């Protein structure tokens, strides 16, 4: 197994005049499963494509094991970005057959595992004679999963691999992923909108918001410092005074807030309030969602990078 890190520094990406990524620093380490979480348009797919040299960067650097990634086969041999498939390419239908698609993937990836690809196609009940444009959304996702897993690349990116998959197929994917990961220890970075069921897979979570990394942290630590506090508004305010408070919601005398504790901080004792753990999905809503119109100005709403 390779020990190379994929590192990007001050990565900026513009499409024309529109800047999508505003200076991203990231370090993707070997032997980890990362989750890439963010809203539509946050820049997730753009980030994945510039990290894998499928699209040029505007400024900054991307290196794998110290080597630049751009047009560098020695680096790219270790990296797989299994993109979402499209029924349409260029001006016409994507009339490649599934088996031809997999065949071309086998030329791309030096560690291609054909027997694994064949087994996954069988298990997912994919018809390899079908044209890509005739596949359902879920079946297209299956093809991208087969490519990602069979590539056996040291660093493998999956962009919304479970989009359109039914719950049984999603569960099968998570298990295949863990099977492979426990055997090979290769790194996976997975972007997904189905956060609730995938969060337990992610050793680390990267929140991308509006072209910036909002945070990158061990999922466990992140969830331990996130807490939802609710109760009588005065009590909630008193118990959370001085803390980073997000997404306040009020109803009558009652109030609920999400708190992201920093090291050494805690919720003040002695108030009759409810405290509940927060999952990644609710944390994303609290940190990246639109703030409801505040009814009073007494709430300190942190929304900058520093306050996390």
């Amino acid at each position, binding site marked *: 197994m390779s020990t190379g890190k994929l590192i990007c520094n001050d990565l900026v990406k513009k499409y024309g005049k529109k800047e999508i990524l505003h200076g991203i620093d990231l370090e993707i380490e070997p032997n980890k*499963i990362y989750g890439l979480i963010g809203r539509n348009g946050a820049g997730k797919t753009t980030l994945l494509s510039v990290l894998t040299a499928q699209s040029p960067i505007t400024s900054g650097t991307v290196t794998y094991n110290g080597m630049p990634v751009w047009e560098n086969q020695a680096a790219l041999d270790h990296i797989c970005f299994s993109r979402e498939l499209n029924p349409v390419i260029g001006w016409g239908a994507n009339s490649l057959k599934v088996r031809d698609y997999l065949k071309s993937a086998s030329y791309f990836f030096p560690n291609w595992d054909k027997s694994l690809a064949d087994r996954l196609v069988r298990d997912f009940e994919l018809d390899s004679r079908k044209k890509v444009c005739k596949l359902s959304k879920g079946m297209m996702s299956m093809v991208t999963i087969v490519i990602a897993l069979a590539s056996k690349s040291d660093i493998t990116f999956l962009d919304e691999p479970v989009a359109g998959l039914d719950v049984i197929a999603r569960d099968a994917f998570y298990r295949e992923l863990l099977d492979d990961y426990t055997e090979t220890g290769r790194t996976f970075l997975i972007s997904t909108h189905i956060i609730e069921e995938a969060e*337990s*897979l992610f*050793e680390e979570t990267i929140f991308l918001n509006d072209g910036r990394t909002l945070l990158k942290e061990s999922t466990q630590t992140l969830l331990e410092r996130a807490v939802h506090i609710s109760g009588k508004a005065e009590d909630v305010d008193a118990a959370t005074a001085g803390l980073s408070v997000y997404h306040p919601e009020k109803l009558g005398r009652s109030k609920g807030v999400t708190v992201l504790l920093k090291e050494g901080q805690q919720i003040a004792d002695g108030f009759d309030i409810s405290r509940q753990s927060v999952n990644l999905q609710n944390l994303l809503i609290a940190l990246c969602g639109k703030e409801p119109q505040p009814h009073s100005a007494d709430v300190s709403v942190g929304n900058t990078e520093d306050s996390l």
Partner: protein
Amino acid sequence: MNEYLSQEKSIYLQISEMLENDILRDVLLEEERVPSTNELAKLYAINPATAAKGINLLVDAGILYKKRGIGMFVAAGAKECIRMRRREAFFDTYLCSILDEAKRLNISRDELISMIDGNYERSTKD
């Protein structure tokens, strides 16, 4: 080992509690090998690092021990050790919330005690 994971609590804590429950119920016997980190990861579709954290809690407590190259085993005296630990945690885990709720409902000390007296026998099965 086949309980469902909930979202109320950290997963590694749930993993270590499930292993403890299995030891208390004789699903896992002393000096027997427990499921590996990877087996647990696949069963629950969780990151192996999380499963390892749950197992390590029990290793630190002397409930499991490692046989190099073979795996994790249930230590002799593990059952007693779990009982002792849970006894110590009993006040914080259960009694505190009972007392808080009793106060909220204006249940007096005597009422609470008579409730316990009247029902203790029926709940001593476990």
